[in-house]
């Protein structure tokens, strides 16, 4: 019985690159990983948005209306619904003049208990330290 911790770090802004979306969909796939593992073994995924990556977390994305595409916002809400840990770097939000009010903080409408945590970079660095492996997107 063991748990392997993966740290997903998203550093690119949304849409121009598929990376942020793929970070979210791959992290969410941690929920169905048991079918490949022995009983009690686990792989977990923690998500952190840093640098230009924090722009993924803006509210009111209209990608579906405008381009028929699931928004990064929806993917973040899916991650919260599935109880993944989602962190957003506080210093980077501040650098862009953004506040907690501007970002996707919960998925209450879907009954999610988990909320996005706006945290200092040091906490993201600690997550990286605690992870067994890192994946940068």
């Amino acid at each position, binding site marked *: 019985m*063991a748990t*392997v911790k*993966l740290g997903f770090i998203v550093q*690119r802004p949304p849409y121009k*690159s*598929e*990376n942020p979306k*793929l970070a979210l*969909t*791959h992290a*969410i*796939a*941690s*929920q*169905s*990983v048991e*079918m*490949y*593992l022995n009983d009690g*073994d686990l*792989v977990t*995924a923690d998500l952190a948005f840093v640098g230009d990556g924090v722009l993924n977390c803006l509210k009111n994305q209209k990608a579906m209306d405008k381009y028929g595409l699931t928004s990064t916002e929806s993917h973040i809400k899916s991650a919260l619904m599935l109880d993944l840990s989602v962190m957003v770097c506080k210093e980077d939000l501040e650098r862009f003049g953004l506040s907690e009010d501007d970002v996707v903080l919960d998925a209450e409408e879907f009954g999610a208990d988990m909320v996005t945590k706006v945290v200092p970079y040091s906490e993201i660095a600690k997550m990286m330290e605690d992870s*067994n*492996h*890192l*994946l*940068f*997107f």
Partner: protein
Amino acid sequence: MGKLTIGCFSSLIGSMSLDFAVKLAGAAIEKGHKVDFWVSGNGTMLSIKAQRPFKDYSFLEKPVKELVAKGMQITACEACAEARGYHKEETMEGFKRHSMDWYLASTFDADRVLHIGGE
């Protein structure tokens, strides 16, 4: 000997990240390590069979097949492939197709994970 899991999300042609990843996988297997190889996003282009070899474009069918013969497991993200029109019947022999959890599961007993993002 250890196990290396490589994930690569870049197009077959363009960034040369897949050229790098395949060479690295070859060097690791050469030294007796086990390699799992995952492609997702535009990286699923690697899985198509019957690509025409031109010297102007990256062409990795041959080295991939050789590494599979030496025991490398290689898997493409099924949804990413289907969305691009890469269907099962066009997939290279030896290339598996699974959902994204395969990649995460592969990291469980991996000693090292090298995740290479896309464009």
